[in-house]
């Protein structure tokens, strides 16, 4: 619903303009472009985009980043047996970070993630270790004693997806991507393109005001019935437009109509902008859904000026990670798809000259158990994730490397990791990079006040 949205941002603008005694000057939009960026809650003269790559099902972080030092790898092999990747198969992708991990520990990328190795080496890719949902910093003793609040409905897919994305279980109606959008909508000439989802609806992308705009991997879809005579009749064509956009008092009918109106309006703007989009030479794997989604994100970024956007949040996804069985058969293919798509996307941002202004990060329902059930792993908690972009303090491990040991200090059962870094901290760090002020961080990451470290140092200073 871009109309009410832009009304909201116009209202916000007018309020701020009035406060600054600018109301009498020029046209609102000219003002908006020339003067308001300073007045906006979060000023945004430049462009920045955040891309959430959600791995649905709970990625097995252990096989994604297996241990490489001999001692830990031996334990990995002992516990995971046939599900473990042999050490010699990891030699080519063993990571050499700028600062080594304590205790001689080493991690490798899964062999299928090899396309990301050079990005780590060239310090464009960082790894965030053992991040997960938390309400506040939590020790194993506190977990066992249930003496502090824990995230609701741990180990449940849909709820942990929701907690990761929004800090609340299923039924939540705003996520931190959307809440970032709330703060930047006023900076964007066309607010409806603030939160753009190239996957399916996700609570991550809904703000308190910001509405996610969904676009397919092939772009926005024009409504045929209103573009030309419908069944030979221009009267029918006009009736179609009126029929699908007329207001309704029934809430569901009104909501459906709202989505349709937004679709028609946004398509008009977007298809015009895309028609003039620069050619993108970077190749993407056309057989990969994730690569096609990320290519669309890249193409949308390429028309940022035509869309008049300064800050954007994107959401893409890849499913199939809930590998209770077939881990060895299926996980490598998923990782290969992830690596190829991320690699192409990063190359595309480099081609467009915006790699410093675009940060992509992975997320997932949860990590998985270290223990094996023979053919796969089970729902876990903390996990490792990637942060990618020209502004990232890459070539490093961020956060604390957990012990890889059953019944070890970080294990809350079957090798489920108690997170040592909270999603709120990740959200706050990304929000600060986008330009959110310290005082506004709780608007994005509601539990950030529980943590002394509000910035994980994921970006170059």
């Amino acid at each position, binding site marked *: *619903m871009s109309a009410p949205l832009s009304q909201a941002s116009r209202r916000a603008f007018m309020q701020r303009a009035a406060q600054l005694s600018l109301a009498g000057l020029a046209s609102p939009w000219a003002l908006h472009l020339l003067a308001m960026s300073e007045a906006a809650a979060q000023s945004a003269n430049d462009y920045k985009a955040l891309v959430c790559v959600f791995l649905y*099902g709970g990625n097995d972080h252990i096989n994604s980043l297996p241990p490489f030092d001999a001692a830990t790898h031996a334990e990995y092999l*002992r*516990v995971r047996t046939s599900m473990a990747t042999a050490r010699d198969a990891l030699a080519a992708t063993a990571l050499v970070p700028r600062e080594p991990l304590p205790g001689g520990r080493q991690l490798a990328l899964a062999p299928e993630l090899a396309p990301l190795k050079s990005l780590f080496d060239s310090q464009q890719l960082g790894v965030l270790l053992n991040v997960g949902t938390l309400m506040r910093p939590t020790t194993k003793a506190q977990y066992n004693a249930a003496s502090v609040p824990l995230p609701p*409905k741990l*180990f*449940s897919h*849909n*709820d942990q997806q929701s907690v990761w994305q929004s800090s609340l279980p*299923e*039924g939540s*109606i705003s996520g931190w991507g959307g809440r970032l959008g709330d703060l930047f909508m006023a900076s964007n000439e066309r607010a409806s393109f603030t939160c753009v*989802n190239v996957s*399916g*609806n996700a609570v991550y992308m809904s703000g*308190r*005001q910001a509405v*996610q*705009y*969904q*676009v397919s991997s092939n772009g926005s*879809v*024009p*409504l045929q*019935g209103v573009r030309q005579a419908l*069944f*030979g*009749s221009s009267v*029918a064509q006009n*009736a*179609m437009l009126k*029929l*699908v956009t*007329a207001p*309704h*008092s*029934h*809430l*569901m*009918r*009104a*909501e*459906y109509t709202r*989505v*349709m109106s*937004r*679709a028609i309006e946004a*398509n008009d703007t977007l298809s015009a902008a895309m028609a003039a989009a620069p050619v993108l030479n970077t190749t993407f794997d056309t057989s990969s859904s994730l690569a096609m989604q990320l290519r669309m994100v890249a193409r949308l970024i390429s028309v940022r000026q035509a869309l008049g956007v300064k800050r954007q949040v994107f959401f893409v996804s890849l*499913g199939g990670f*809930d590998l*209770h*069985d077939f881990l060895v058969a299926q996980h490598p293919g998923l990782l290969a798809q992830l690596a190829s798509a991320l690699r192409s996307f990063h190359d595309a941002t480099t081609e467009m000259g915006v790699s410093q202004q675009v940060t992509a990060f992975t997320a997932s329902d949860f990590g998985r158990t*270290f223990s*094996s*059930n*023979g*053919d796969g792993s*089970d729902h876990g908690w903390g996990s490792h994730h990637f942060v990618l972009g020209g502004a990232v303090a890459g070539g490093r491990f961020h956060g604390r490397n957990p012990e890889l040991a*059953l019944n070890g200090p970080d294990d809350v059962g079957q*090798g489920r990791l108690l997170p040592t870094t909270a999603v709120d901290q990740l959200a706050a760090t990304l929000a600060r990079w986008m330009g959110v002020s310290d005082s506004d961080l709780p608007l994005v990451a509601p539990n950030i006040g529980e943590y002394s470290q509000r910035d994980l140092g994921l970006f170059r200073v």
Partner: protein
Amino acid sequence: MSPSPAEPQLSACAPWGAAALLAACGGGGSGSQLGSDSAKDGSALLAVALTDEDASRLLAQAAFGATDPHIDRVKALGARAWLDEQFAIPRTEGHYSTMLSQGLAVEANLNGFNGFENTVWRKLIASPDVLRQRMVLALSEIFVVSMQGLPVPWRGFVMAAYVDLLETHAFGNYRQLLEAVTLSPAMGVYLNMRGNRKANAAIGRVPDENYAREVLQLFSVGLVELNLDGSARLDGRGQPQETYSQETITGLARVFTGWDHDRFVRTDPGHAQRPMVVNSANHESAEKRFLGTTVPANTPAAEGLAMALDAIAQHPNVAPFIGRQLIQRLVCSHPSAAYVSRVAAVFNNNGQGVRGDLQAVLRSVLLDPEARSAPADGQNSRGMLREPVVRFVQWARTFGVTSPTGLWNVGNLSDPATRLGQSPFRAPSVFNFFRPGYVPPNSALGEQGITAPEFQITNESTVVGWANFAQSFVASGVAELRPNYSAELALASDAPALVRRVALLLAANALSQDTLALITQAVNSISAATAAGRNNRVYAAVHLVLCAPEYLIQI
């Protein structure tokens, strides 16, 4: 095989007269008349009092929409007797058997779904047992197995046998349905119970917890303790109470160890039809505790499984948890607490002391005053967004779509931008296409906390995708499937009558006068002088109704 509009002249279809009749007998009256007590009396008055639009509304909920013969039948029998007739309709040939007789059990199909979707569309669109087919689709969205995530030999036959199983139990008992689902090769593979082995402490291997977790979260009790009306039962501090813990899952996962295909052979899909059997060597023999039940050590696997399924099926959450979802699949997205209570009470006891009688539950869902009462002004969150698959099947059934080749090559309709954004048995995960608790964000629905599951797959791509796809299939059919608009073409030169007919069949007369006038005007703008023009009039009428929010939201 497929119902088709029998007569170009709709003798029973007198919408304006029907509206007057509704005003006379409708309102609060029709609901209470259809309540279980009076309906048990078999009131003849009730049967004759049903209007065309009453019948069309029932058929939208209990079938896949209205046809002339179905409207006549509902009016002749009344709602309750029509349901009884539906319960008694014999099943047509099963999916597995159909695929077998089509010669699909050949090596080339070992790792594919060849023929499966064809037989699914065949039955959804053309099988005469419409209520059973509607219930199968509903159950397929609660007890989800998806073609996406079934890496098993003979997967097409495994899916076919699973749909047959849902048919078998659609009008049966929940406890038997739960057991059949649990032991089905399809679910066994999809949620990994097949091949699940007991723990091996030496290497830290533990049983797979997937089925244990999802059978509780999705197929029976859900995450929090519920009252009979579906609301969360709060503790003394006003907090919801979780129904199970990680320890419950760990205990239950041990029950689900040792099960595997019954006589799997590579050359024959026969195992797909047989319940899984236990291999005792892989079954955990230690004691298991869950949900207040203890399975003593060394209990035989099958006995332990029966104890577990009994414990699950007896849980007080099941009635409101499953009952509310069935209401959502058939009648409305956000039922009142009282409606859920009434259905849950029938789930708990069908009146003869039987728990989980799905026929009784269906009667309760479909004959409830909240389902049967005519829409009233000001009920601005009543009803549901029709899910895309149901819309498509409704169009196909209403207009007598046939497959001249008998192949029903509808295929995969999952593409959100060009098809439905949904296709039967292709949910992205066991969490279905949408969740029963989904609340659309940034909306008046969200502000009021109104659950509206189908909105989870409603976005800028799918709303336009539906309209564009409908524009195409209304005029040209899909693949080799073609509609039969003979009854509508007979009305083509009378635009108001044509639009009224389509509005009755598709939308149970829920279109406002303004909307009817708008569509009629559009139809009238097309010349009826030529055959092509008359076709276009019908296409315009059908397509515009299919795109109307007053149709899309079924009330």
